[in-house]
């Protein structure tokens, strides 16, 4: 009996060991590390970065990773000024930003930006021209688009947002955005705003879409992982992590982890498209 127990114990231990071994493969490089890593910037990145940080901190509690939003512009600025270790951006850093700060960019995911409405909104499909007219304020009522009567509430993001930049460039052809548009400060805030407003329309990173908001079919293409991946859905961009100069220490290991098989699996799990 005792022997049986011992065998059972051993098997359990072995199983536990193996499972951690499988799991810990990519995390192995964080062994014997300690210290803090500060990450800020793009808000589209947050689901992935948060999960990666949680796994790393669970593996090695001596590592502290802090994650903040603020938008792509802020991420680039703060990493350039040395306030943080990794600055995330949902757009490529501009030429003058790269040269001014000596930035190095790492692209670890591809992300679509989808126009979203409230789930109860009967309008489910819009053409590019309609989208431009909505955002410039030419179309002001859902009735004009075959929906129920109601004044369209526009939602947009501030100028430093990478999500805004991509949507404005590729979704609106750099068209005007009406001055009566409401401003929200992050992808999360956009989701909260649209899920609350039956007459709202906004845009979020595809990774942030869930059942509380509905992604509108754009020019006949439904924005989802598949269409973004194949390039059929055109409003897409890379998700970048930037460092000042070549990354070292924890920052390098963190970026390597994001690009590892396990990191890329997190990217896919969170609704983005892996780059590897």
């Amino acid at each position: 009996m005792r022997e049986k127990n011992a065998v059972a114990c051993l098997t359990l231990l072995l199983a536990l060991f193996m499972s951690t071994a499988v799991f810990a493969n990519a995390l192995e490089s964080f062994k014997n590390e300690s210290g803090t890593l500060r990450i800020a910037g793009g808000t589209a990145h947050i689901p992935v970065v948060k999960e990666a940080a949680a796994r790393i901190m669970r593996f090695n509690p001596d590592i502290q990773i802090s994650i903040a939003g603020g938008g792509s512009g802020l991420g680039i600025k703060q990493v350039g000024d040395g306030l943080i270790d990794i600055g995330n951006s949902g757009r490529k850093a501009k030429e003058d930003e790269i040269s001014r700060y000596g930035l190095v960019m790492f692209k670890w995911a591809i992300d679509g930006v989808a126009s979203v409405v409230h789930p109860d909104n009967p309008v489910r499909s819009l053409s590019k021209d309609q989208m431009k007219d909505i955002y410039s304020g030419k179309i002001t009522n859902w009735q004009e688009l075959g929906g129920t009567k109601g004044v369209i509430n526009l939602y947009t993001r501030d100028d430093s947002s990478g999500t805004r930049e991509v949507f404005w460039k590729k979704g609106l052809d750099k068209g005007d955005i009406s001055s009566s548009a409401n401003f929200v400060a992050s992808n999360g805030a956009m989701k909260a705003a649209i899920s609350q407003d039956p007459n709202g329309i906004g845009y979020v990173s595809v990774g942030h879409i869930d059942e509380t908001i509905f992604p509108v079919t754009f020019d006949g293409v439904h924005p989802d992982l598949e269409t973004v991946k194949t390039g059929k859905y055109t409003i897409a961009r890379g998700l970048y992590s930037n460092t000042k100069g070549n990354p070292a220490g924890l920052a390098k290991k963190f970026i390597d982890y994001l690009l590892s098989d396990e990191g890329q699996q997190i990217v896919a799990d969170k609704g983005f498209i892996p780059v590897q």
Partner: protein
Amino acid sequence: MTRFQEAICEKLLLSAAWTSGSIVVFIFAFMLFLGLPLLSGGHFFSLLTAHWAPQQGSYGILPMMAGSLFLALLGLLFSFPLSLGCACFISVLGPAKLRFLLRKVVELMTGIPTVIYGFVGLFLLVPLVRDIFGRGGLSLLSASLMLALLIAPTMILFFCDSFDRVPRSYLDAVDAMGGSKVQKLLYVMLPNSVHGIAAGITIALGRAVGDTLLALMLAGNAIHIPHSCLDSARTLTSHIGLVFSADFESLEFKAIFACGITLYLFTAVLVLVVRGINHRLRRPL
């Protein structure tokens, strides 16, 4: 306490007063210095009258100034009658136990973080406003209603304090003449507390203009001059919050200092105006 110790104490307190006083001046100088590129180019005054359209190279902050002003005044409009009524109840009219309880609740309210009000507003008030009016969830109305709640405790406590400062002998005189509670309030306490009421309003208005989070979360932040309470609007403070993440070298960022200077001057003028009013009110007494 020896003379020496007393001298040291005096010096310490003096330096504390000087430090806090000079910081105020220093901050203003700092903002002037950073806003200098705008001021020297003669852009500053055009900034105050133009619209915000970075793509067209226009960085005016007029819509934000209007937003700040409307939001603060609307908040005060909702909050003042509420606060005055509440203060009267707490100081005179209510039954003793309830007065005590209410005062404690109001004191507790001063400690509630703004973000809690913002959150409650976003999930309870915004949908309500949207249901009632059919539009304007994120709007001046929603933000000013929450703002009214935020600044009310400041005013209530100020008003209560000034009621309490009315000399006991005055109140006794009313009682002796058989005056009712309401008469006491209307003819003795209110006229003798004008000073304190004005001070309470100033502090509250200053707080309303300076508040960032409620405006950012509830007012919608659209860059236009609002035409109705149900319009979305952006205040100077939330504008600073939103543009802060723009490129340091850009004109957008530099225009923030114009906002800062305007806010500073606005508050300063506010304090001076109320001082002036107080001064005039006090003379005939």
